[in-house]
């Protein structure tokens, strides 16, 4: 009697691969559908106040403190020695009128930075020099280019590791506006 029951159960063992596969597929589809919403690399500083950045200013119209907590802005780490930054630069140029962009030159030489900006255009409202990488450590920089989005309350809302593209930037701005 029991043997017969086990026998009839064993008949269905052939179904197990397909069932397991369907479960796996569910997870994979879920993930790929949600991949756009997941932050690429979350920062522990997300939704925290921007740490105080004591850096050297390079011919800037106004200071960081005059902005902080009043207007939203973005902080863009770049370097003249970094090739992807060149690519990203055209994107920043395009948005320089719509956004307040703060540029921080990471471990760079002031002359090279100036050359870089005169060659490719200067999208930055404030330009600062992080020659020893101090601010980078405070913000937990992963590499250049990297961009932080700060809201009007002075809190870090998003962190973009790697170069921005027009599409990415639009998506980020859209999702930040929604929130």
């Amino acid at each position, binding site marked *: 009697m029991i043997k017969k029951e086990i026998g009839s159960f064993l008949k269905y063992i*052939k*179904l197990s*691969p*397909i069932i397991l*596969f*369907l479960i*796996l*597929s569910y*997870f*994979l*589809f*879920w*993930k*790929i559908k949600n*991949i*756009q919403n997941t932050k690429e690399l*979350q920062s522990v500083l997300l939704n925290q106040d921007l740490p105080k950045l004591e850096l050297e200013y390079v011919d800037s119209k106004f200071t960081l403190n005059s902005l902080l907590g009043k207007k939203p802005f973005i902080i863009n780490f770049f370097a003249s*020695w*970094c*090739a992807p930054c060149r690519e990203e630069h055209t994107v920043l140029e395009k948005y320089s009128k719509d956004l307040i962009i703060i540029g921080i030159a990471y*471990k760079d030489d002031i002359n090279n930075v100036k050359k870089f900006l005169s060659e490719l255009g200067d999208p930055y409202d404030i330009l600062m020099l992080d020659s*020893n*990488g101090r601010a980078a450590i405070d913000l937990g920089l992963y590499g250049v280019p990297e961009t932080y989005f700060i809201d009007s309350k002075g809190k870090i809302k998003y962190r973009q590791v790697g170069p921005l593209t027009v599409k990415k930037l639009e998506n980020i701005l859209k999702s930040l506006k929604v929130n």
Partner: protein
Amino acid sequence: MIAELGFILLIFAFVLSAIHLFFSTRVCFINFSEDNFFILRKINFSICLLLIASFLFLIISYVLSDFSVLNIYNNSHTNKPLLYKVSGTWGNHEGSLLMWLAFLGGYGFFLTLYTKNNNKKFTAKVFFTSNIVNIGFIGFTIFTSNPFLRISPIPEEGKGLNPVLQDPGLAFHPPLLYLGYVGLTIPFAYSIAALLEGKIDRKWANEIRPWILISWIFLTLGITLGSFWAYYELGWGGWWFWDPVENVSLLPWLLLTALLHSNRVTEKRDNLKSWTILLSIIAFSLTLLGTFIVRSGLLTSVHAFASDPARGIYILSFLFLITGASLILYVIKYDKIESDEKLNLLSKEGGLLLNNVFLCASTVTILLGTLWPLFVEVMTGKDISVGAPYFNLVFLPIIMPAIFVSGVIININWKRNTVENLLKKLNKAIIIFVFLVGVILFLLEGPIIFFIGIILSIWLLISIINDFYEKIRTKKSISDIKLSKAFSIPISTYGMYLAHFGLAVFILGVAISDSKKLYYEGVMKEKEIVKVEKFKIQLKEIVEKKEKNWISQTGNFSVEGFKKNISMFAERRLYLDTGMPSTEAAIYRNFFSHLYIVMGQEQPLNSGKRIVRIYFNPFIILIWSGAFLMAFGGLISICDKKRNR
């Protein structure tokens, strides 16, 4: 012009595949005729040649540094040596997919060639299945990852290939690995054809055997080369990191190994049929899953390609359709193909089944560990990662008995055995084994895992020797050996011996290098000396030089501790075209051991102090040599004409 030509060929191949699909459906399921079969063969040949030609056109464009092609602009540079211009072709997502297609073409070509005299009705179904795979991948390339896209205005110079990829190891690691992955298409196509036909016999198993072996050899070589390359290029000092992409290459390998053994049972004993079929379906699906994981950026890894969700969705849908359909077909035809014959557990086939269980269980653990972060994220929304401790803890206890059992299986006979017979055959081996284990336990010291590794390796060696000895000795007495008998042992058996010998060597390498390694990390100034156990290492000077396309800083180390004093040069390069640094570890080989020095960046900047990591990896070369011997054993097995009819 060349780029357009390449793309047009690709589109031709796609159109032809669509025609092939339509036509082969008719030939397979509605109206079979020999003439139609020969037309099918011709279409097959054309598709294959088109795919290969398209890839060659991309290579030519790379060699000519045609930067009007986006893909080449992104991944090449004029001041690269020719080898890296060529290897740059597959050092990126689009190009590597086209290489995948070219390999599909290559395998398809030989498949069509070698099946000329086989059962035509059956072979048509094999073509039908492999063509579906072709369509999926050609479509993937054309619609989501076209490598022939142009850009305007035309840049003067390319952006350069990622420096860590500029290495002979990388030039050959992906092609070998892909040859392994793509090769799995053929056992898969054979399995689906057999399911459609509803018939699996020993002849079928014999026909797919060489294809499984080829795939297995390439996969073994590809993984080995990848591991070796990571070891000396990435400067992490280890040979395996349980990185998700490493794991997804190991998964098909484990299943393929299981398939190789279960197919033996099908071939010899006409048993485990549905199991063999299932394994080949899943092994193939795992390569698709691997492709999906790597190309969609689903999991973070050192191998991350530029990720694009559209690609992920395409490949996942393809995986879903093809695996789903195969498994449904499997359920429908299961009763037809499953043999009722009982399998005797105390026999070679029983042992192989047991080994299969272990191999599959270890595959599942790795799959689970690799995908676990994903499951957790879906269920709880948290980000976690599963690291090496999990894999070592779970994988090793499962794979160890498998290795022990294989030693027994080599010695056991097909069909029925008795425990007495088996013991009689193994008694000398067991006595020697116990003796050696005693000696080792007495003489050596180390962690438990060290002993387990060495003991397993010795057991495997002894059982190979024992089996060989039993085969060449005469029945009369135990010491009467007839060497002429060695010639009557099939070549494939020698291949099997060598492959398992390679496994033993591999395990020995892992056990010793892992438990006896030395490690030092710290900052060093010029002229500073550190002591790492018996080694006295001095950083003599750092020399800076400008090379063709990089700036090199070389640390000159002098080492005391070997028989003679040596100098070692650890280099750190800054590539001019990409601005990326890379490390060239200094590796000094002493017999099978390595002294491995990596010089990192200045820390803190302008202090003259360098981060230095020093590893001593005893017997680490055995790891790759063992894996290489395994592949070589497979090659010998393939060459056995008698076994392959």
